[in-house]
Every structure is written in C-alpha cells, then in structure tokens.
C-alpha cells in the first residue's frame, strides 16, 4: 500500500512543479494584532473567571460605599431610641443597632472609611516605598547598605507593636490609623522595587540607553519605572486588604476608631457583643469585610498572573 503511494509521487510529471515565490515582506509579517502590555494583561485577566468576578464585586462594593449613605434616608450617626435592635425590614434593610441607628447606612459608611484607609495607606506605601526602593537601588554602594539596614531594623520590630504604640500617642481618628499603617507598610514595597530595579539596571536595554546618551532622569522615567509598574500594581493590590484588615483589627480591640464613627471593625466589635441575641449585627459587616479581603486577594493574584506571566509559569 505504502509502496504504491510512493510510486504515485514519483510519477508526478516535473512540469507540474512551480517555484513558490516567497515574498520578503510576507516573511517579516507578524500575524498577531498589535497589543500593548496592558491590553495583553487585560486579555489574560479576562480568562481568569474568579478575578473578573472579584473585580465586579469590588466595583459593586465601592459603588455602594459611595452611594449607599447618600441615598439612604438616615444619617449614620442619627439615633432613634424608639427603634433599637430592629430586625432586617423594608424600613431598615440590615436592621438597627442598640441606639436605633440604621445598620445599612452604617455598614456602607463604615465600608467607605475602611476603603479610604486601605486606598490612602496603599498610596502612601506606593509613594514612600517606590521612592525609597528606587533611590536605594540607583545610588547603590554605601547609601544602599545603610538604607537596607534601616529596613531590616524596621522589619525586626513587630508591626503591631509600632502601630499600637502610635495609636496611644496620637489622637484617635482616621488620620492616625493611616499614619500608623504607612509608617511600617512601605517596607515590602521598597524591597520589591529595589530588587526589580537592581535587576533591570544591568540589563542591556538600559546600557543601550546610556550608550545613546539618554539622561539619567529619562533612564529612570522611561526605562526603569515603566518596567516596575507591574509589580507595583500587584503589591498595592495586596496592601489594600491588609490595611483594611489591620484597621478592623485595631477597631475591634478598641484602639482604632471610636463611636459614633463607623468602620467595619467598629461595627463588628459592636455586633460581637450582642452576637447571641442579634446575630445580623455581626454577620452583615463580617460578610462585607470578608468579600473585600477575598476579592482583593483573588484580583491581586489574577493581576500578578496577567501582568507578570513569568512568575506563574
């Protein structure tokens, strides 16, 4: 059978063969559509279903945190002693607390405060951490050694002790919590950025820029920072939930925000004391904080896989 087939091939008359013209331009053509690194990342992120769902949940929570208190007929601090400890109803979607304050308004107001703390802490981390890491990596030598020792000392002292001591000294409030979180939070970011820039600094494309006479400023702005953005975004994504959690923890043990201010930690603390009689006061804020933490973590993971594919594969 096989033999026959081969014979067939040999019997093809030569005239039937023609030369294929390879077009030089065709050879150099790239079939794939032109995409930026961000578009590429977005396509990869979209393939990760959990990350997309998380993204929408986060968007929904942020929207509710912004709009919820605005559209609610109640004020977050407005008490109504005729309606304490009401169960969930049409008038009060999530019920009311011991002073008759509307839990729905308080939860979204608290979420707003928690998210604000998370975002501001992440921004401060970003600013301090990126600057510190970049300066340390770029100057190198002794400066780098000293800056790294400072970081090691900071890492050596337990984070919570610094935060708790600060909370004792400074007046209670959102600002203090943010300051306390920012003082220790940037260390991770600084280390990541430093490591990344050290790695990039000796790559050939930076040398090529030097050889072309690019100024130091442009090397940093056009070559080093854009290649660091991926890990900065990813790390910031992980900073937000950890800042929110730390705030909730501080409020829960009673040294964070205090009444009538509401944050998710304060609400959970209040709900915890009446857990057996009115469980909805604990469950609703707990669900919101769990959703925030889980969704940011999943989205952070998804972003890491999407923006920095080398790390996952």
């Amino acid at each position, binding site marked *: 059978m096989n033999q026959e087939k081969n014979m067939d091939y040999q019997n093809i008359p030569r005239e039937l063969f023609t030369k294929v013209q390879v077009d030089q331009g065709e050879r150099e053509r790239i079939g794939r559509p*032109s995409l930026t690194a961000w578009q590429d990342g977005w396509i990869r992120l979209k393939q990760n279903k959990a990350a997309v769902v998380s993204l929408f949940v986060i968007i929904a929570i942020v929207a509710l945190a912004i709009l919820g208190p605005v559209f609610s007929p109640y004020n977050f601090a407005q008490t109504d002693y005729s309606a304490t400890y009401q169960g969930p109803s049409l008038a009060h979607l999530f019920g009311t607390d011991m002073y008759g304050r509307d839990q729905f308004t308080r939860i979204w107001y608290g979420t707003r405060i928690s998210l604000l703390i998370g975002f501001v802490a992440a921004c401060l981390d970003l600013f301090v951490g990126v600057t510190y890491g970049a300066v340390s990596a770029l100057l190198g030598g002794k400066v780098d050694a000293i800056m790294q020792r400072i970081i090691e000392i900071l890492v050596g002292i337990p984070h919570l002790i610094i935060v708790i001591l600060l909370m004792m000294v400074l007046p209670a409030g959102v600002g203090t919590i943010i300051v306390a979180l920012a003082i220790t939070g940037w260390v991770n970011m600084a280390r990541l950025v430093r490591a990344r820039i050290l790695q990039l600094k000796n*790559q*050939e494309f930076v*040398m090529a820029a030097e050889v*072309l*006479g690019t100024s130091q400023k442009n090397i940093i702005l056009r070559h080093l920072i854009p290649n660091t953005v991926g890990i900065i975004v990813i790390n910031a994504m992980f900073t937000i939930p950890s800042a929110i959690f730390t705030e909730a923890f501080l409020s829960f043990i009673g040294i964070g925000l205090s009444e009538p201010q509401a944050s998710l930690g304060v609400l959970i603390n209040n709900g915890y004391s009446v857990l057996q009689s009115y469980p909805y006061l604990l469950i609703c804020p707990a669900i919101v904080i769990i959703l925030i933490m889980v969704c940011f973590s999943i989205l952070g993971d998804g972003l890491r896989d999407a923006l920095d594919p080398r790390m996952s594969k």
Partner: protein
Amino acid sequence: MNDKNVLVSVQHLKKYFPVGKKQTLKAVDDVTFDIYKGETLGLVGESGCGKSTLGRTVIQLYKPTDGKVIFDGKEVVGKQSAAEHKEFTRRVQMVFQDPYASLNQRMKVMDIVAEGIDNHGLAKDRKEREEMVIRLLETVGLQREHANRFPHEFSGGQRQRVGIARALAVNPDFIIADEPISALDVSIQAQVINLFQDLQKERGLTYLFIAHDLSMIKHISDRVGVMYLGSMVELTTSDEIFEHPLHPYTQAMFSAIPLADPKLETSRKRIMLHGSIPSPVNLGPGCRFAGRCPYATDRCRQESPAFQEVAPGHFVACHEVQK
C-alpha cells in the same frame, strides 16, 4: 600603517573589578590596539576572557581603571565635557548580544529606534522623526507596520535588527558589536552578518566585532585580535592569523575549527591544551598562558611578555615567538 587613518586608539587599557576585600579581578589588563577607519576589527577569545568588558570600557559604559581610549584624535576617558560626551554618544554606538534583553519591553519599536534621535535632537518635528524611523526600519529589512509594535512580538533576528536600527539612528561612525549573532539561530546569523556588511559598504562604518564564532570572524573581519584572560595575545590581519598563527594559544584555538573538506578534515590535527583557564582573580607574574602552554619556559613563568610587532602589522605577546 598611516596614523591619519586611526579612528580608535586603545592604549594600555585596564579594567579591574574589586572582588571581596583585597582581591581584584583583572578583566582587561593592559590592552593596546588601534582600529583603522572603515575596517572591521574582530575580537575573539573564549567565554570570560574580557571581550565584552573591553568593548564596554571602550564605549565608556565602564570606567577604566587605567589607560587611554582615543577616538578620532580626542581622548575619551575621564576628560570629556558634557557636550563632548554627547557628541561621543552620537558617533559611537553599540549593538548588544541578547536581543531579548536589549530592547525595552514597554516601548514601541518606533520609540526604541527614535531614542537616539530624540536625545540628539536630530529630527525637527514628529513627522520627520517618524519618517527617519521608518527609513531605518526599511534599511534593516523591516517594514513600516513594525514601528507600532512591541518588541515581544518579534523574533530574535527581527529584534536584533531593531537593535541595529537603533544604533544606526544617530548616524554613527563606529559601532561596537558585542556578540550580536551568538544568541541567534544559525539560519538568521547569516542574514544579520550580511546586514552588517552591507551597512559598512553603504555608510563606511568602522566595526569592533566581538564574537566567539571563529568562522564568522574570519568571514567578516579585516583584522583579528585574540584575547586570553584579559590580555590581547595576538593581533594581525584576518588572512595572516588564520594561515600563520604565531601565538601558541591562537594556534591551539584555530586548530579546533573543523574543515569543510572531508579529506582535509581527517588529516586535521587538533592541538589539545591541558589544564583549564586559571581564575582571573589575583594572577601571579609571568605569561598568563604559561600554565597551559606546551612551549612554556622558566622565563614565561617569571616575566610577562610584551605585546610587540614581530612582522609588519602582526603583533604577538609571547617570549618564544619574539626570540
């Protein structure tokens, strides 16, 4: 050889790196050579012998420990004003080894190629800049559409050509090619080498071509320098070095090239060297090759040989040859 034609003169160049507290790694140790206008000087040697360090020191990516680099009559090392350095960066360019690491992933090819144009203000406006980039891309065999793409979309050979276009953008006189083909497929190597040669013909470029592929060096170079452990052991014309290598290291290295003719190939004798390359950290006195050289004498172990002209245009650093 006429002094007027010397474009780059490297004199007693040294580059030491500190290793630990008291040790130094002599990556380039007392290297002297000239490069003539319009020629290709090939630089060969095994991995780690300092070829790339030499190239990078000449182009001022590294600050030399000692010695001079004279480009077009002007001393380059440490004596340049900011304006002179800028002019130097326009006239001297480099093509790098790794086409994957040498292009910034986050920039479009248009901006990568235009970087030199922007730095030196070579284009009047955006439109001229765009036209210049497209002309450069076409020069290296790429197309107009490639300008708006990102480096990760290209193949290795295409990337290397983008790298060449970037170097050409400032219209340089002298290009240092640091193993530009060693990371490429064999089928693509010829394409890139031919591009280098065509560009030299069209633009009268001068190359310092660093490679470890001996047959490629033979093909492209006018003169060849052989490096061993940070120093140059032999330098002469391409034909001379392949036909009459004088230094025992060069002889051993070139005896390793396989011959295309099977009959000659069976009679080819390889000079096998014994021992391995000593570490370039804290070398003792004497010729660096003495430990592996079949002809080494006591003098070789005591005294380091000078790099001398033994025949017109043929420099060797070896006591035995110089006798």
